[in-house]
């Protein structure tokens, strides 16, 4: 069976880049931030392309907000076409899901894939809210997907190394956990081919948001005692600590 797959991809700030509170105290300073495809979505697009390579079909990638670079990356990886929704939904996942629902209203699909969460706001909401709005079965934090006739078999991640196997009839929505596959690198050929692929903009009315940011701030934490000096001095101090504790 061939599958038409929609993938949700976010262009998101890397939490490993320089994160500072913005001057108004309600957001994050753009300066120092490094943006790329949300790490979880990188696994989602890879999974979609793999399913297409094995079973045939089409992969359509959808991005909300400024997503051009990420959408082009997905096209270069192997997605067939892209839909960009110009909307700043900020941290409001309900708005994001509503925007996607409106933008894909004319699309048919067998499967929607998304990352478990975004690496910046970590809500883990857009996928499951969209599934609820579309009234289709879903599973989150999935670590393996296999396609069977008219359905998919997935394992989702539980706590403590356990997993949970489920089957879902299609159409369904899946959010993937990181590590589900090994995402491919973008090839020069891929980038060339991506230039001829469709990137369509669809404007939608996503309605009102349900949350509003009041304040963003640095968590108050009791910090570790810092050990400073040259690597040799640090090593010496560490060895002292370990000796004192009877660890060596």
């Amino acid at each position, binding site marked *: 069976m061939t599958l038409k797959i929609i993938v949700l991809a976010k262009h998101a700030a890397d939490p490993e880049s320089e994160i500072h509170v913005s001057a108004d105290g309600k957001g994050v300073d753009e300066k120092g931030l490094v943006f790329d495809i949300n790490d979880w979505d990188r696994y989602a697009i890879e999974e979609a392309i793999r399913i297409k390579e094995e079973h045939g079909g089409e992969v359509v990638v959808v991005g909300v907000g400024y997503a051009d670079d990420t959408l082009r990356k997905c096209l270069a990886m192997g997605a067939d076409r892209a839909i960009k929704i110009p909307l700043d939904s900020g*941290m409001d996942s309900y708005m994001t899901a509503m925007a996607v629902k409106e933008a894909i209203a004319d699309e048919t699909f067998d499967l929607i894939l998304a990352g478990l969460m975004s690496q910046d706001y*970590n809500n883990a909401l857009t996928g499951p809210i969209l599934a609820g709005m579309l009234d289709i079965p879903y599973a989150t934090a999935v670590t393996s997907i296999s396609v069977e006739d008219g359905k998919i078999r997935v394992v989702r991640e539980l706590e403590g190394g356990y997993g949970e196997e489920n089957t879902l009839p299609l159409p369904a929505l899946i959010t993937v956990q990181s590590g589900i596959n090994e995402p491919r690198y973008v090839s020069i050929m891929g980038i060339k081919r991506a230039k001829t692929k469709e990137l369509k903009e669809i404007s939608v009315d996503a309605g009102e948001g349900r949350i509003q940011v009041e304040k963003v701030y640095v968590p108050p934490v009791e910090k570790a005692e810092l050990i400073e000096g040259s690597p040799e001095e*640090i090593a010496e101090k560490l060895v002292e600590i370990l000796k004192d504790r009877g660890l060596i």
Partner: protein
Amino acid sequence: MMRVFAIAEVSSGELDPVSIELLNLANAIKGEGSAEAVVIGNNLSEFAGELAKHADKVWKIEDGSLENYNPEMYVDVLLQLFSREKPDVVLIPNSSRGAEFAPLLAVKLSAPIVTDIVGLDFSNGVKATRYIFQGKLLVDVLVKESESYVFTVRQGVFKDECRVEGEVVDSGIKPSASPKREFVGIVEPEAGEVDISQADIVVSVGRGIDDASNIELAEELAEVLGGVVAGSRPVIDSGWLPKDRQVGISGKTVKPKLYLALGISGAFQHIMGMKDSELIIAVNKDPEAPIFGVAQYGIVGDLFDVVPALIEKLREVKG
């Protein structure tokens, strides 16, 4: 009169302690209202009794078909309960399962949802606090006024116990339809050659180790110290270490005498797996890395400078 409902978590035949934490929060915010627990599954009397020590009322939703978790069935029975007993606030654990079914419940209740909260304040509007950027920042969000609200709650936060003697009520509710998604079975963790949870010394590596070939450096240090090598999620995801070496909520919980965190930023999911170690020493380039919040000693620097120097020094003193 606020009615706060806490959905208990039962997994592997046990009541998860996070269920009591939800009730601690429910009792703290209920005011003149009530803290009510809901427990879903099969053979629930024992769990319901335990929950009743912390709740004004415990609703049992019991049926053979609810033996195994299914998000559609959970939401089905909860909607039946909530159409009768109007909740103002619904608290759900931010566990793998709770985080999965909560958004569907929120959509069906037309309620706003905020996930993974660490603070909740109803004194002036509705304000929820949560971490963003994997623990680097906190955000207070104001939630739009609504008939009801859904929150998923981070484990380990609301520890102040509140004792209430409540009654257990059999809701009589059964699932109204069979779900589209079907539960097949539980997948057991793979057993590896070493059990990192049994080791006295754990040398743990994160994204900062940069490449599979650098794992050797950690192995060398572990060997000198007589410990084992473990890793955080990104290292396992990249396939640089096997899954049974993963420290964190979705991997293993370790409490060694020494936990050496090398290039680990310290996402919450990792910290929950190692915070009770006797001694935590962290090396990370980023002074803002959350790992320094749980470590006793921290080194802001490059692990590739510090680790070789430490190996050399250890060899010297050990002869």
